[in-house]
């Protein structure tokens, strides 16, 4: 029983990473209605920007906001420069452009900062929390930041005019345009916010997994899984889903003999698929009804 509790706690700690990423995934899904395959690489690139700023001697709390602003602008630029011209292209073309972005960002980061593994500082320190070896101060801080972000996003989407416009632009672009929402700029704003949240995720994750151009690939998978599990339409669901994926992954690795250790990731994903078969809109998502 104690082992179970410990494993769940450890799962929540890793789940915080996935929750952070899932939140960024859902953000961009809300804005553009697609899953962004380049999300992980965008976060990685932002983290490298923070790393470079600190290398130039800026203190952490100066580098952090600058990175967020740069990432926000970068996200807006990606939308305006890359995606606006192909707005009417089929979905699969968009997917291919996501893949292209992924390749470009990954290769450029590798070219500028090379592929060696770098350590990244944590604002919370890496001491164990309350003397427990299962969860460190950094991981606790990460959970805190994720929850704080969630609350901020909730308030933004629920109570601000611009948040409402963004939701309208994503849900029904044609009608939103008719009532005066500038749909194009709402998309760009969504991209910018997703890039900034991705930057926060990257900066929080880097002290745990270390910084290198390929650090995000497997994390993005878990982030997707968490987002879909929780419901792509619900930021809170995404965070919950991220934590659940972390817990399931840890429990499968511990309690399922032989296969569990080797197939940790697939088992987590298969469980999620099983959930989806029974509840396709995710745990907290809205069911979209199709009109004939």
């Amino acid at each position, binding site marked *: 029983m104690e082992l179970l509790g410990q494993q769940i706690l450890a799962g929540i700690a890793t789940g915080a990473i996935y929750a952070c990423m899932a939140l960024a995934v859902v953000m961009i899904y809300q804005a553009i209605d697609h*899953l962004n395959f380049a999300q992980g690489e965008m976060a990685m690139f932002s983290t490298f920007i923070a790393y470079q700023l600190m290398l130039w001697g800026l203190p952490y709390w100066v580098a952090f906001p600058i990175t967020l602003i740069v990432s926000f602008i970068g996200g807006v630029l990606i939308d305006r420069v*890359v995606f606006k*011209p*192909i707005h*009417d*292209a*089929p979905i*699969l*073309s968009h*997917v*291919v*452009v996501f*893949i*292209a*972005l*992924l*390749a*470009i960002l*990954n*290769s*450029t980061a*590798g*070219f500028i900062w090379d592929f060696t593994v770098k350590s990244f500082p944590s604002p919370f320190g890496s001491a164990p929390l309350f003397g427990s070896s299962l969860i460190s101060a950094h991981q606790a801080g990460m959970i805190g930041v994720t929850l704080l972000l969630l609350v901020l996003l909730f308030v933004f989407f629920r109570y601000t005019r611009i948040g409402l416009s963004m939701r309208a632009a994503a849900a029904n672009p044609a009608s939103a345009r008719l009532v005066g929402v500038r749909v194009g700029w709402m998309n760009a704003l969504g991209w910018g916010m997703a890039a900034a949240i991705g930057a926060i995720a990257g900066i929080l994750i880097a002290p745990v997994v270390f910084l290198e151009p390929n650090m995000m690939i497997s994390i993005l*998978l878990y982030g*997707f*899984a968490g987002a*879909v599990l929780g419901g*792509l339409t619900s930021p809170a669901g995404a965070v919950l889903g991220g934590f659940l994926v972390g817990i399931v992954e840890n429990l499968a690795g511990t309690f399922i003999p*032989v*296969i569990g250790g*080797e*197939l940790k*990731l*697939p088992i987590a*994903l*298969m469980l*999620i*698929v099983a959930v*989806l*078969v029974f509840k*396709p809109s995710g745990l907290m998502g809205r069911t979209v009804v*199709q009109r*004939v």
Partner: protein
Amino acid sequence: MAAPAETTLSSSASDAVASVEMPRAARRDGTIAWVSRITFLVVALAIPLLFKNFVVFQFTQMLVYAIAILGLNLLTGFNGQFSLGHSAFYALGAYTAAIMMDQYSVSYIWTLPAAGVICFVAGFLFGLPALRLEGIYLALATFSLAIATPQILKLSPLEHWTGGVQGIVIIKPDPPPGVPLNQDQWLYYFTLAVGLLLYILARNLVKSRSGRALMAIRDNPIAARSMGVNLALYKSLAFGTSALYTGIAGALGAIIIQFVAPDSFTLVLSIAFLVGLVVGGVGWLPGAIFGGAFVLFVPNIAEGVSKGLSGAVYGIILILLIYLMPTGAAGFVRAVLSRLKS
């Protein structure tokens, strides 16, 4: 009126002008189609005689990718289902061929139908639960299949069959006795023959009653169901058929590379198929060959432009391509054809 029209169909274009009845545009379309088919065949048949062995091997590889993309096109282009998991079926086909040849010394020719049948069953069974999932959720389910594949192939209980991380090395087949070709040339022609056969089957499938049912499901599932199309059956069959094509491609790939190992069948392979599909044109079967060529050659070109930034160059080529031809080679060819017509 039908009789003269029919006779002029077979006669040359110059005296066809006399009977200006109806199918002029259609006839010219037909001519263009036949000219391009024959050109393709002549070029394809000439390749092994013109190039060195390694280049012939590369073209064989291109045909293999084209077959896999053809399979994916049947699923995505004609049935509207999205898959990121086709590397799993490719791997299944490749391992079927390799295990049959390595452990039971079966002739390479017989591994193809076996790989096809096994992959069809696997695809059909995977398609059944996946039916309930749509769009992005199906993408996630197939995505996890692609992620799981290399790890399942490495599993220790299966090591006796799969050779674990090391994989399986197989022997390159010789051409049949009396055929004056070397191994690479023979495998090229063999792959070409299989590819053409599969292409013709796919084309007939798409034009059949079942093909129309598949497209009806793609365009409007609810309407298709009310017209009496069995959604569950057809979607699963589409998945199975698509897996069959990809599995045969996998078996061919194993035979020509003479080696299978878990890490050749990652998500990257699935993504390559998807890129090939979009580059060739979704829902246009001949596009597969363009897709195959892109998947095989463009990464090399990108590497040639810049070693360190090859990924970035590849990405930029991809983005430019989507800008210039958002519907892939299919749209490009259609645009050229409509120019020719007017």
